[in-house]
């Protein structure tokens, strides 16, 4: 079977070689990079612009952004027909291609996030290493002491001046990271926007739309995960308190509604920007009505109507907009809102990537994507529901691992 044949359904006239070649993993790719960029921008609001109330969520979202980072190229690897040759992009980059710079942009961004994290957590590493060296017992503690000593990279000075310099470095890196994060994602938009052969993708607005929706989705996921982690901590804390007979005041509290409300406001700003640009694009296409408009109109208003107007704009944009902008935002309402926002952004990626292939370049036929749910082969697993869930679940696994080394909440213990 030819690649793409398993999930493509053709209608009317489609060129013989046309299939949906860019499937679910290419939907996941901009969705994941968007989350990375958005989480980073949120953390920078505190570090660069000094929005003090966001201190707690800033640290959280920075670590989360780092956990999401390796998951951005993962869908690409799962999508490549020759995944073992992925390093060719770095070895022989062909710079007329938008994809060629991916390795460079991605690694630059990764290094910025990693070094920012190091400056944020250096004091913690030193404290942990020293504590474990003195009080550590057993092999595990010994290994952990070595790990934390390595993580300090030999910088043991935790004097006030040195820590102050760390803070300054964090500020500089967070500042430098914002344009790079936007570039990383705007560039994902450029990959689509620059394909002149695809009538739906080709628009200079694509990178900007991608950045705005990226920030929206990143903030939404941070709010959601922040609330989830806080609730989990509260639950575990209560259980621990019951076991150890601690006084009730020592338990960690739940998510702070003030933080959630403030973060949601930033989300709304970017949401409005994203919708405005998307609608502008749609109106412009309808008004200019060039050759491709006939087929685009039948895709947008007929074939994909439910996905675009009900799921994306309705459930994914309008409903959460109302939910989040009504006064006295509760945690529960915020969770519902952010979940819908994530659905909306995911559907936007879907409607761009899959929608862009829903019609033949002959403009005389349609293609329908049937997401493989039960994998019958490696191919239908990689580019099916299984592969997508693998990519979606990976950040949480990584986040768990990283947060063992870099605690996201101030600890009760003193080292």
């Amino acid at each position: 079977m030819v690649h793409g044949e398993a999930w493509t359904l053709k209608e009317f006239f489609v060129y013989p070689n046309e299939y949906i070649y860019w499937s679910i993993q290419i939907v996941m790719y901009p969705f994941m990079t968007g989350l990375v960029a958005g989480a980073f921008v949120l953390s920078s609001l505190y570090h660069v612009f000094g929005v003090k109330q966001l201190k707690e969520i800033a640290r959280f979202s920075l670590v989360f952004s780092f956990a999401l980072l390796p998951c951005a190229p993962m869908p690409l690897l799962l999508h490549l027909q020759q995944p073992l040759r992925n390093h060719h992009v770095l070895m022989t980059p062909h710079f007329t291609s938008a994809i060629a710079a991916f390795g460079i942009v991605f690694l630059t961004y990764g290094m910025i996030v990693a070094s920012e994290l190091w400056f944020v957590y250096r004091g913690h590493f030193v404290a942990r290493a020293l504590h474990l060296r003195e009080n550590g017992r057993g092999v595990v503690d010994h290994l952990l002491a070595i790990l934390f000593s390595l993580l300090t990279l030999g910088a043991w000075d935790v004097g006030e001046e040195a820590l102050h310099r760390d803070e300054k470095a964090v500020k500089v890196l967070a500042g430098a990271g914002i344009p790079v994060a936007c570039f990383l994602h705007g560039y994902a938009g450029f990959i689509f926007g620059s394909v002149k052969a695809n009538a739906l993708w080709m628009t200079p607005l694509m990178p900007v739309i991608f950045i705005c929706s990226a920030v929206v989705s990143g903030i939404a996921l941070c709010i959601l995960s922040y609330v989830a982690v806080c609730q989990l901590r509260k639950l575990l804390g209560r259980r621990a308190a019951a076991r150890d007979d601690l006084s009730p005041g020592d338990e960690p509290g739940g998510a702070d509604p003030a933080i959630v409300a403030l973060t949601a406001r930033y989300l709304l700003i970017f949401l409005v920007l994203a919708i405005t640009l998307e609608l502008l694009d749609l109106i412009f296409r309808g008004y200019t009505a060039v050759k491709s408009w006939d087929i685009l109109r039948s895709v947008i208003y007929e074939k994909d109507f439910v996905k675009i107007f009900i799921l994306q704009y309705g459930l994914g944009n309008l409903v959460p907009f109302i939910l989040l902008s009504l006064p006295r935002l509760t945690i529960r309402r915020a969770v519902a809102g952010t979940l819908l926002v994530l659905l909306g952004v995911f559907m936007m990626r879907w409607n761009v990537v899959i929608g862009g292939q829903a019609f033949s370049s002959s403009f005389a036929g349609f293609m329908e994507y049937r997401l493989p749910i039960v994998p019958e082969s490696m191919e239908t697993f990689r580019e099916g529901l299984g592969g997508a869930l693998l990519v979606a679940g990976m950040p949480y696994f990584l986040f768990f691992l990283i947060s063992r080394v870099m605690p996201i909440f101030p600890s009760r213990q003193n080292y």
Partner: protein
Amino acid sequence: MITRRTFCKQALLVAGGTVLPLAALELFDPRRLLAEKEEGAKVRWVFLVDTHKCVGCGFCVKACKIENEIPYDAHVSRTWVERYVVTKDGRTLIDSPGAARDGFTSSKIDQNSAGMVEVKDEEIAKAFFVPKLCNQCDNPPCVQVCPVGATYQTADGVVLVDRKWCIGCGYCVMGCPYGVRFFHPVYNVAEKCTFCYHRLHKGMKTACVDACPFGARQVGNLLDPDDPVTKVITSERVSVLKEEYGTKPQVFYLGLSMEVK
């Protein structure tokens, strides 16, 4: 201890010193030297399709599949033939069942999931066949978008794929407005019509040209004024497909109708 000022100065000096010899490399660009020596290219392969002569027998598709080892029953092909049926009430129906490998054996038109459509003879205003293949564009978008340079244009204008270097991202497949690219079912890399480059270089014609019983397909060298193909292209009214994309396609058509997509 080194001061910041001297560090910056010395860093600039080192950076400048490293860049300088790199600039010298530009002077010895081998391709430019070659071009200067040979006074420009002598060959530009082009294709000429006379749609008036095509009867949709599909011999070209069959020959291509065998010559270029594209799995015979796989639903992809380097070249294909389209059938256009325009009805008196203005509808255009197009199909290319199995890339027309076995020709058009039924008068019903294959509309994929919309089923087979029967058009009565008396309702037909006009009907014709259009063979398609890679346009070997002068400004090939597929070459532009390849992230690793695995697809490239030869000096004589043909666009090829390096099967050992292609990573299979599919960007070139997406970038081609003509839909000529696909993934090879065996090698799992991007695949396309090469104008039978291996044959052209032995002085032969492409497999499809040799297989066409009616001379609907011809291949030639645009830079040779005595080439019969060049004579037709330069003296007759020829057209190309999808000019609006700025790809400068090099497959020229005689008798193309406005319905052709």
